[in-house]
């Protein structure tokens, strides 16, 4: 009888290293070039990678389309800045803030953690019953959740300054910060996918009835993935808020969600390789298109300017990918090294 030797630890987890290495390289090269514009693009790229990984953790493993990531990003963004802003900045930007929050000021990393935890808490409280639904009903409920989060962010003026832009956030997020957290969350998403919970969830995605028949608690597996996804999105929202420093609730709604979905679906939703590859490619494409847009607008070739061109190309690309390669560029596989294991 032949015995299968278990793969060594490195080979089993090579996907993480194969993906982390180029990300670290991008970060290093960006640091060495020292160009401010490139640094901004790469910083946002790393935040987007975390957000798309958050989407992948739930959507990729459960097969349920989730619109809520943008909402949890918003919750994380607002909750983290409420703890990191100076009392003076809060007094100026949020005059109606509840008195117990006005004097609190915590270190940046603690605030980020609080942002992620509050997003996870909201998900933990509301999501369990929602996880019973899948397909169209599941999509509409999670979509409703996004609408509710957005309505609350827009109207809870005491905490968010309402629909208006919130100013006065200090910038704490730099290239190094996002690089570190991007790699950490890459490991988290990989670990989750390969964990027992992730495996059970993927089984339920491929065949819910077969999975249930071998005793998998599908609702619980979905729930755990959803809460983890919310934590990651909330944490990334905090990172983004301390990078961009002024934002409104509309940054966390459907147009943001469209970009995250495009990134994940173009790359391939079933693996973390697809999430990373998709985010990098779509970012490159978007920046290219945006510079075309800006050049056309500057040169005044068109009387009304070229607004919305980037989104149109992205939407067409997304539809073409869904028609020709529905499993995304990675086709549901993970990058590995060496290739034959």
């Amino acid at each position, binding site marked *: 009888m032949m015995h299968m030797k278990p793969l060594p630890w490195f080979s089993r987890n090579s996907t993480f290293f194969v993906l982390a290495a180029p990300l670290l390289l991008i970060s290093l090269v960006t640091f060495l070039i020292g160009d401010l514009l490139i640094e901004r693009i790469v910083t946002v790229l790393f935040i987007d990678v975390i957000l798309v990984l958050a989407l992948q953790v739930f959507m990729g493993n459960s097969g349920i389309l989730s619109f809520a990531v943008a909402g949890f990003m918003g919750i994380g963004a607002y909750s983290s800045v409420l703890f990191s802003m100076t009392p003076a900045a809060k007094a100026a930007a949020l005059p109606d803030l509840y008195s117990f929050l006005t004097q609190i000021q915590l270190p940046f990393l603690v605030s980020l953690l609080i942002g992620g935890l509050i997003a996870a808490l909201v998900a933990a409280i509301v999501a369990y019953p929602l996880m019973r639904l899948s397909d169209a009903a599941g999509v509409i409920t999670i979509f409703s959740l996004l609408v509710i989060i957005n309505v609350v962010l827009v109207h809870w003026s005491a905490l968010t300054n309402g629909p208006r832009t919130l100013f006065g956030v200090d910038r704490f997020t730099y290239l190094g910060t996002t690089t570190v957290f991007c790699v950490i969350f890459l490991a988290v998403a990989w670990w989750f996918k390969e964990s027992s919970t992730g495996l059970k969830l993927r089984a339920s995605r491929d065949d819910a009835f077969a999975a249930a028949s071998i005793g998998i608690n599908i609702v619980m597996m979905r729930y755990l993935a959803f809460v983890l996804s919310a934590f990651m999105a909330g944490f990334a929202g905090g990172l983004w808020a301390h990078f961009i420093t002024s934002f409104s609730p509309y940054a966390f709604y459907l147009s943001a969600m469209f970009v995250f979905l495009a990134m994940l679906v173009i790359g391939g939703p079933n693996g973390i390789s697809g999430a990373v590859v998709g985010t990098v490619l779509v970012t490159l494409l978007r920046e290219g298109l945006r510079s075309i847009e800006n050049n056309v607008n500057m040169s005044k070739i068109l009387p009304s300017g070229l607004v919305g061109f980037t989104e149109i190309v992205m939407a067409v690309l997304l539809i073409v990918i*869904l028609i020709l390669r529905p499993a995304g560029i990675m086709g549901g596989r993970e990058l590995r090294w060496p290739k034959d294991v």
Partner: protein
Amino acid sequence: MITLDFLINAISLGSTYALLALGMVIVYGILKLVNFAYGELIMITGYSLFVVALGPHLPWIIMAVLAVGVAVLTSYLTERVAFRPVRSNSLTAMLITSFAVSTLLQNAALLIISPRARGVPLPDVFSESAVIWGQSVPIRSLLAIVTSLLLLGLLVLLLRRTVLGIALRAASDNFRMTRMLGVPANLVISVAFAISGLLAGVVGLFWVGRTASVTPTIGAAPLLVAFVATVIGGMRSLLGAVVGGYIYGIVFSLIGVLLPQGLLEFREAFMFLIVILILLFRPEGLIRGVNSSRRV
């Protein structure tokens, strides 16, 4: 106070919402597609009115027919170009496609026309009021009620009395069985999208009629309305969609009167909370369709 003009406005809102919901469910019933691009058909109707008005002077009713025609055509084309090729893939692929189509159409309006609001021509009766039993009632509301009832009546005739209508109803009960019995799938789906476009187009006329203007993002609100109404009524039944639309219109008007001012701005959140609760506790909606969706 419940007055006559409140009642008429609530019923007129309900009629509009009923048409909206029906247009969404007629596609959902057959393809199981929640069409995120549905709201954009209303935007297209509005912009078509705007564009037609730039040309030679025509009577308003002709312009309206043209605008609704463009909505029907757009709905048909989105199915032909985007949904048909992904139809055999997963449900999620089709949902994401509809989200992409919605983004595409919105940004096309931004690019081709303008991010700013554009005025649309309206007939004078839209801004006039009639006096009924001493109360002034906007004629627009009465028109919405009459048009909706006429259109619903025509649809009932189509669905009950014609072969095409019977095929449509059969397809929304059990699409696979209908195909096996020799009904051409592509034809049925195209017709469903065309009817969906017609309903959205007619609703679009009244929707842009409220503000006499159209913006690229005007489709978001009617899309949300269609979601809520279809979920209330039951996503598997055409009758349910109509009932859901009327209930939504009337409940929404009542909430507007009954809810204290401070909570009024959260009205939309309340409606979506109702959606989540219904999907959890009575996912088949108020009117049960033939096949209710499976849950884990």
